[in-house]
Structure formats: structure tokens, C-alpha cells
């Protein structure tokens, strides 16, 4: 019982670490691809139809 209990905590811990690493990797990859400019270009200009006006 103790072993199984520890195992699931270990699995959870591993998943958390892995996801944090993946998240950081994704952010860097996305920034490298130039996605940040696309986000920025859209965020500072109001595309009316995209928000539901007009």
C-alpha cells in the first residue's frame, strides 16, 4: 500500500516537472518561430469583426 501510494506521488511529480519543461520549451519555440509578433500585431489593433462588432 505504501509503495503504491509513493508511486502515484512520484508519477505526479514527474508529470509536473515534464510539463513545466514542455511549457518552457514551447514558449521558446513559439518565440523563435515569430509567433510573438503575430500575437502583438493582432492585440494592438482592433479587428472589428473578430470581436463581434459589425
Amino acid at each position, binding site marked *: 500500500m505504501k509503495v503504491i501510494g509513493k508511486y502515484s506521488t512520484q508519477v505526479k511529480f514527474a508529470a509536473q516537472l515534464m510539463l513545466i519543461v514542455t511549457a518552457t520549451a514551447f514558449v521558446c519555440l513559439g518565440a523563435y518561430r515569430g509567433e510573438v509578433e503575430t500575437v502583438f*500585431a493582432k492585440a494592438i489593433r482592433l479587428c*472589428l469583426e473578430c470581436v463581434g462588432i459589425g
Partner: protein
Amino acid sequence: MKIIKKIVPLLMVIMMTFSLAACGSNSTVSSPSSTDGTKQTKAFPKFQGTDFEGNSVDETLFSKNEVTLLNFWFNGCSACVNEMPALEELNTKLREKGAELVGVNVEASESDKSLAEAKEILSKQGATYRNLFISGGQEAKDYIGKIFAFPTTVMVDKNGNIIGEPIVGSIEDEKKMDDILKMVDDVKAGKTVSSSVSSEKTLDDKIAALVTEENNILLEHKDVWEKVFDHMEKSNVEQMGDTTYAEYLKAQIEAAKDSFTVDELKTLNNDIKRIDEIDKQIQELDSNKDNK
């Protein structure tokens, strides 16, 4: 929970004071139409730009067309891109009238990548009308910087003056395109165009406002007009068919001329002139409504 409840509000207060202090220096952008209260004709600011074929352009391009429609767009705006085939059609119709639709991409001046992307979008959507980006002229850049709602269409006459208000939103639908073509005709005929594409509602509002104005005129000299109405004979009502209201009133006053003083007649005639003008305006708005 204790830790979170202690740290979070503290962080909030720190961040809030920090950002409020920094808030003053942050850059913001406001629309040109909302801040400008005057209705004087504004000249489109001088600019230097390059069209998508590499030729340089500047404000002299306005003098080559009766009316130039500047359609501001950017690469990420799906509405702008979706209306391009409709704009292509509009351009063909405009060319027949001696006008032109010119697209202005506000992103292309920033990088070559954006320019290449813009060209690709145009070719895939089948847009052959001229497109350009503006790279020089501080006033022009400021004007464009102020535009934040897309797509925006600005009409400029051949002297480089901006006509009416910027049209905000896509102009894809038939109604709006017809309005624009009509405005172009009006400008060519020399009439002053004061407002942009109007929807049904605003026209009704305008008509209602004019009718109230007319009633106010009659109320101004209530006593005199009451005398006129008293004198109106029932039989004359049928005659109204062909004449305007103003002419009809005039005829009535002629018939009852003797019961009025010279001053009263003068006032009545002035009032009739004003009513006549208002009637003409109402007629025009009515015909605009009918044509939609």
C-alpha cells in the same frame, strides 16, 4: 492558504502602485474621428510611400482621381482579408467613375516579412487594386497610428481633402457599397457630403429631427399660423397633391392676405422659405432611404 492569503494581496498592492505610476508614460492610441469635434475639411497629411510594385507614391496620387478610397488593413485582420474580393469588384465600378480604391497596409512598413505576407494575401485573394504602405511623413504616420479599428476606409477628394467621416468596419455588403458609389457621384457633382455610410436608423433620426424643426418654426409664430389654419378651406385640401407643403401654405396665405398685417406677412413668408428648405432635405433623405 495562509501563505497565499498573505503574499497575494501584498503582491497586488505592489504591482498596482507600480503599474499606476508607469501608466502615465504608456503609449495609447485614439481614433481620429472621436477626438476631432470640428467638421472642417481636413487635408489628408502629406506622406511618402511605396506601392507593392516598388514605385514610390505620395499625396499627388489624390489629384489623379476624382475620389480616392483608402482602405486601411493589416495582415492578421480576417475581416479585411475576407472583404478583398468584394473590394476588387468595387474598384472596377469606381474606375468607371474616375475614382480608385487603394489599399494601405499598416503593417508592411514595419518589416519585409510583413510586406511579403501582405503581397501573398493579396494575390491569393485576387486583389489587383493598388496597395501601398506609408513610410514617410510624420503627420501621416501619426494619423495612421491613430487608426486602431480595422478595416477603416477613408475617402479623399482630388484636392487631398478628407471627405466625411472614416468608414469603420467591413464594407462588403451591397448596401454599403451602393452608398459609397453614391457618395462618389455626389462629390463629382460638387455637392458637399457631410456624413459617412448611414444605416436605416440614423436616416430616420435625421428625418425626425427635421420634422421637429419644421414644427418648431410653426410654433414660433403660433398666433399668426393659427389664423392661417383657421382660414384654410376644406376644399383646398384636395389640391395638395402636386404642390409642396410650402407652396400650398403660400397659396392659402394669398387667399387670406387681407386679414394679416404687413409684418405678419413678412414673418409668414420667411417661415415658408425655411419650411421649404427643410422639406427638400427631408425629400432627399427619404429618397436615400427608398434606394436602399
